[in-house]
């Protein structure tokens, strides 16, 4: 099943077109034009996003701050940072606070999709581990 992706960037044209292209390839795509909108979309609960593609440099709340908030509220959601050359340092900073990886702007769709796939796999692996742990917990409780 293709991943559910939330695209966050202040460049409206960029996000919209990319959303169209990803949807064309079977992804479920949500868009947000700044940090607060992204957090809002994640928290609303009508779609459970697997991967967030987050622009680092945004007016108002910047990418790194949004990342921290997302990771705090939704630790399982994987975040891919999207960055221009000038902000590679801050993208790396973002990875230290838990981002999955970063991509340079402009990126081609194939590499983005590959990254999304990896991120989704990682998320699923995490979820499976949690499920296993939970199952073990239940089994152990039964065995008492």
């Amino acid at each position, binding site marked *: 099943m293709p991943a559910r992706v939330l695209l966050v960037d202040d*460049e409206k044209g960029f996000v919209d077109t990319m959303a169209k292209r990803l949807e064309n390839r079977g992804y479920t795509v949500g868009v947000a034009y700044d940090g607060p909108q992204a957090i809002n979309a994640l928290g609303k609960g009508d779609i459970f996003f697997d991967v967030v593609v987050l622009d680092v440099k945004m007016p108002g709340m*910047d990418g790194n701050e949004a990342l921290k908030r997302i990771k705090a509220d939704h630790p399982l959601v994987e975040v891919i940072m999207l960055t221009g050359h000038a902000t590679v340092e801050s993208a790396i900073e973002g990875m230290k606070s838990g981002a999955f990886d970063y991509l340079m702007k402009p990126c081609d769709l194939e590499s983005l999709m590959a990254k999304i796939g990896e991120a989704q796999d990682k998320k699923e692996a995490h979820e499976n581990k949690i499920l296993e742990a939970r199952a073990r917990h239940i089994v152990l409780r039964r065995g008492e």
Partner: protein
Amino acid sequence: MSDVHYYQGLAKSMMFTIILVSFAPLFVVVLIAGYQYSVAYEEKVEAHLRELVLKHDQTIDAYLDEKMAEIRVLAEIIDLGHLASPAGIEALHDALTVGHGTDFVDLGLIDENGIQVAYSGPFRLQGLDYSREAWFKAVRKNTVHVSDVGLGMRGVPHFIIALRMRADGREWVLRTTLDFIAFNRLVEDIRIGETGMAYIINREGDFQTTPRRDMTAEVPFLRELARSLTEGADRVHGRAAMAVMDNPATHRETIFVTSPIKGGDWLMVYQQDTADAFATLNRSRDLAIGILFLGGLAITVMAYLMSRRMARKVARADAAKEILNEQVIEAGKLASVGELAAGIAHEINNPVAIMVEEAGWIQDLLEEGLSSGDNEREVQRALNQIRTQGARCKEITHKLLSFARKIDPTVMSFDLNDLVREIVELSGQRAKYANVVIETSLGDNIAPIEASPSEMQQVFLNLVNNAIDAMDPGGGDLDISTRQEGGTVVAQVSDTGSGIPEANLSRIFDPFFTTKPVGKGTGLGLSIIYGIINKLGGTISVDSAVGRGTTFTISLPAGRADGTGTPEA
């Protein structure tokens, strides 16, 4: 060239300062020391001359007193009857000659009618009538009389001591002639320097001793001098009077030291040309003047050469500084361009990313086929978007290029408001990401300023960048205002950032002063701004408080109101 005038003026002022500073003490020392020395020296010379004259007049008085005393003693112990005989007076004269050498030239006894009754001596003066002689008349009144020096009856200069005696009811006068030569020597021997000499005159100004040189020309003057001194109150025995006056005979300033002798009948005079008396003093004065003159000449020459050399060095240093300044400005410019470029690269990335996405989208649609759905319209939209974003890129690169061209220091007249708008536009993106709201309040009808636009661009870009940095993180408000105050155009850039600590306020315009971490700031921005504003004859000031923000105020002289952009030569 005003530069040449400036350095010439500098050299001149340096020269005069050096001359003044080195000359003034020299001059003062020479003047004060010279004055003190001359006063002291003159006092010494005067004291010496007075002493000399007093000593000699005492000697002469003593000599005369002694001779008179001897005659008196003789007269008292010798029988007058015995004296009246030629053999008797001869024996007495011989005895005097044995005891006193040739001082007593002759000896005579005169009766009350003035007839010399007895005589012993080298002349034949027996029976001579002295009744009409002045000294005889004088001795009739006083017991003892010492005559002036005169030729007398024999035509030889001499003077006479006469003594009145009483015996057997008759009055007798004992008379002796004293050797003028021996007496003369006493006074003649006083000689100092070239012109210093002593002589004795009587009340009438007649010489009592032979002066060393012919002084007939001076006789009327001396007579006058003698009279004035005679009448003067200071003619007291034991005190030498001193006067400095022009000698009418020699026409030279002369010192006269006078002292009365012989109970005030005679006047001992010592005279010496002032120039001679103070010869040593004059020599040292001439020497001092010579040294002063030569020293002054040396100082002047040295000051001239040194100040010229120093002015040349200053000119060279200034030229080097000018070059360095330009290089520093260029370096600062590059630094700010670098900063700008980083921001702009990001700015360009966004439209490029959009274009890439749109191109990909078109590709997707083409695979589906243009005929399906409203794909054709969608492709049109995507192409429009690509054109829009391309134009955006072009705009950004143009802005960057316009700023990054080599600094052009050409001064021209331009509108400050236009420049501010340009800067605001250029910094807009950066401000947006830093959450800074830029507001401008630009005054109407502001006179154009005369400056280099690219330099002024740098000034404002630096200030705006600093302000945005100061508000990081968190953002704030950045206000840029312009207004005209009389002949000056005032621009203010104020932020609501962290502010500058008071300790740093005095140093912010220093080159290489920065509070940013190593590698982040060059510390040149504000010093370059300061240099640029200063060069234009303007001022820049800062008002800041920690936590409240910072306001930079730039005042520039307003240019011509016609606004024609003619570059200044």
